[in-house]
């Protein structure tokens, strides 16, 4: 097998007589219940270099990355060699930084504990001040200057970016020579992504070896020096990033790197006057206990025409999900009207008639959470047709099966429980569940975020096909990702709860008017520029 050849040749860096690696993995094999999830992997992390592991989810890149930290899945059999530079263990920045921040302790707790070990040899009375100084230095190195106040907060009181930087500061304070960054940009908008890229680049500039686990190829391309492409636990190809991008040798690498948008812009349907869905003077609020209601969204006017697809773009927290949920009847706390074919829709799903429910369907971001883990997928999908279209069970199941396979799900998979399906498969099933209602309006809320490139492309293709096949369906695509937005006829841009700009997709993408849209476009462009595309 070709993979064999590639894996036996360690990363290109080792052929150089460059600096010694600060961490090295040799012939790592991790086995669970006799099944290898990582097999024969070699990896060298060099100071000041970014080594990226890319691959679809389940390819073993996370297991490999965590091996550097000495962490393995429970019950795993591990063979091989893992070496890390002795002066400081590996640092770790997980995908969700909040998960490694202790929710019950202030941000300073772990930082203090780390710093304390480093000031032991100082006289007792100097320790506190010295530890404090080190912590503040680390925070400032992690681009959190003047963080005294921040130290007293609890993790949940920080923004996602702050959390990530605090976790980074922990690694810096520790003096880690290697930092493993696990999917740091997944699900982030372009602006955030670019900030993270800068940050990781700064780390490398400090002489730290960065091991980047990611399926975000833009980021990998922008950052990495060395890339290892993984599939099914093995490294199928590795080499310097430029070489890989320009001349991928392995078929899988080629597939992975084929990033061009699958399809763009069909002809927008001739503007047939009456919109299928119309939003007027929508104001949505969130109520969180003590603070009273806060307005999170204001949308004076938004319309969706039959057969049209509309992308709603914005950063996280911009209110785009709230907008979608208002339309779907899942966010009750709003004023203003949502009209379906000119008749107002009840505010809550609970008050909507079956026809109304069927007309507006919603696909959730987290497909796994949106399925009942105890029932087979097919059953759950079929229920839509039973409940909303009055089909009997038999024919509903038939139709569900047809829809599911039509979306590319293997028939045998449909009888499984959700936990036995992959994320991509589940998202297809979720799409099928909504489609079975024969909706007039389909709202897709970030349905591709968190998926790897290949899977994402598959889903987007499915959506494109759908738009082509069912001319009557209007699509509303909620996304932070301009690439996905290209799929749509029109784009609406949300920022801080306000609808700042909307218009035809090509117009927004080529000549944005609002400053926010402009900055969004620019960052994306910059990221892409870095990738050298």
């Amino acid at each position: 097998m070709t993979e064999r050849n590639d894996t036996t040749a360690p990363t290109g860096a080792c052929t150089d007589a460059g600096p010694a690696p600060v961490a090295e993995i040799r012939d790592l094999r991790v086995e669970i219940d006799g099944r290898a999830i990582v097999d024969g992997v070699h990896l060298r992390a060099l100071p000041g270099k970014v080594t990226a592991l890319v691959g679809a989810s389940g390819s073993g890149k996370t297991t490999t990355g965590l091996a550097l930290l000495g962490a393995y899945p429970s019950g795993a059999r591990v063979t091989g060699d893992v070496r890390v530079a002795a002066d400081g263990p590996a640092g770790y920045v997980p995908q969700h930084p909040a998960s490694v921040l202790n929710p019950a302790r202030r941000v300073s707790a772990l930082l203090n504990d780390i710093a304390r070990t480093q000031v032991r040899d100082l006289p007792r009375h100097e320790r506190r001040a010295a530890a404090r100084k080190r912590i503040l230095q680390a925070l400032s190195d992690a681009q959190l200057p003047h963080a005294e106040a921040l130290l007293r907060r609890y993790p949940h009181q920080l923004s996602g970016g702050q959390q990530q930087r605090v976790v980074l500061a922990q690694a810096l304070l520790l003096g880690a020579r290697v930092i493993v960054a696990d999917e740091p940009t997944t699900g982030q908008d372009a602006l955030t992504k670019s900030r993270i890229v800068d940050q990781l680049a700064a780390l490398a500039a400090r002489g730290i070896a960065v091991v980047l686990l990611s399926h975000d190829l833009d980021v990998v391309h922008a950052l990495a020096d060395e890339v290892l492409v993984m599939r099914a636990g093995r490294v199928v190809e590795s080499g310097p990033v430029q070489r890989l991008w320009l001349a991928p040798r392995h078929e899988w690498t080629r597939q992975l790197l084929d990033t061009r948008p699958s399809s763009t812009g069909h002809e927008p349907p001739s503007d047939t006057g009456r919109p299928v869905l119309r939003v007027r003077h929508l104001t949505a609020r969130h109520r969180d206990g003590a603070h009273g209601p806060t307005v999170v969204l204001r949308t004076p006017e938004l319309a969706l025409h039959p057969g049209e697809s509309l992308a709603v773009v914005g950063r996280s927290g911009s209110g785009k999900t709230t907008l979608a949920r208002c339309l779907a009847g899942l966010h009750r706390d709003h004023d203003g009207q949502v009209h379906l074919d000119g008749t107002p829709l009840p505010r809550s799903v609970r008050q909507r008639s079956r026809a109304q429910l069927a007309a507006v369907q919603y696909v959730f971001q987290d497909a796994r959470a949106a399925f009942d883990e105890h029932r087979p997928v097919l059953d759950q999908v079929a229920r839509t047709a039973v409940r909303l279209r009055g089909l009997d069970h038999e024919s509903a199941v038939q139709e569900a099966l047809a829809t599911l396979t039509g979306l590319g799900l293997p028939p045998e998979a449909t009888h499984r429980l959700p936990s036995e399906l992959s994320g991509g498969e589940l998202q297809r099933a979720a799409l099928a569940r909504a489609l079975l209602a024969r909706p007039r309006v389909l709202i897709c809320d970030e349905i591709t975020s968190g998926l790897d490139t290949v899977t994402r492309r598959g889903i987007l293709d499915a959506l494109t096909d759908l738009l082509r096949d069912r001319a009557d369906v209007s699509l509303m695509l909620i996304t932070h990702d301009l690439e996905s937005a290209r799929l749509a006829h029109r784009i609406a841009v949300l920022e801080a709860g306000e609808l700042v700009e909307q218009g035809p997709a090509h117009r927004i993408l080529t000549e944005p008017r609002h400053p926010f849209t402009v900055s969004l476009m620019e960052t994306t462009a910059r990221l892409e520029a870095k990738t050298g595309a």
Partner: protein
Amino acid sequence: MTHKPSTLLSDTYAVVQPRRAGRYALGLAVISVPLVLAVLGPVFAGAPGARAASFTPGDGHWFGTDFVGRDVWRQVLLGGRPVALTALAATALAYLVALPVGLIGALTHRRWLEETLLRPLDVLLAVPSLLLILLVASVLTPDAVGLALLVALVNVPDAARIVRAAAADAAARPAVEALRMQGETWWRTAVGYVGRSILRTLAADAGTRLTGVLYLVATAAFLGVGVAPDAADWAVMVDRNRTGLFVQPWAVVVPALLIVALTTGSNLLFDAALHKPGRRRGERKPRL
């Protein structure tokens, strides 16, 4: 640059998973003795023999005689059903009320409904349970059914809170919204999904609650509430025969052991049922 000595990693991480089957077997073994006695005991109890003097050991009686001179073994055979039944019935009853209340409270979006359902229970929660039992029992002089009702009542507020908390958790999941988008019935949503999802939490709670209920039933008997003072009932036997502890310990020890076996066994079973099934999803992200 120094390197850490390489570690041979093989087997280091082979974690021993507690065997679930073993846990089940242990729980079953412990609980089967009292359960079999409770269920089948009355069938084999036979007719009451002549009374002997109280608290005499031996003399044709396997475990001697009790405080009114009855055969202890026969009382043991007869006494399991009321205990087990009262405790099980009380636990079941508590959930019978707590489940709908908790589920409705968690699933409704009408604040007032939730408040009307749950606030009164909060008030009840502030009444010391034994005080409540003492008072109600002296007003109503309940029989076994009454005692079960009373013990259930005492347990309702707490159970409802747990159901509500667990159900609120489940109800906040997108799966419930997805069901709503499908126009699914309330019943299927509340019972079929939310109810199913909180089953583990409930099972865990039911285990401790059953123990608590048994404790309450036994303590109520100690305080002379709910059961005839000479009833064939393990809890009553423990209490009533304890005066003879020095003369004829069997009359106390046997029923006491059976009660402890009942509660311990049921807890072991619930524990086993709850024990996190080993990672099934090999492909998912490993837990650190």
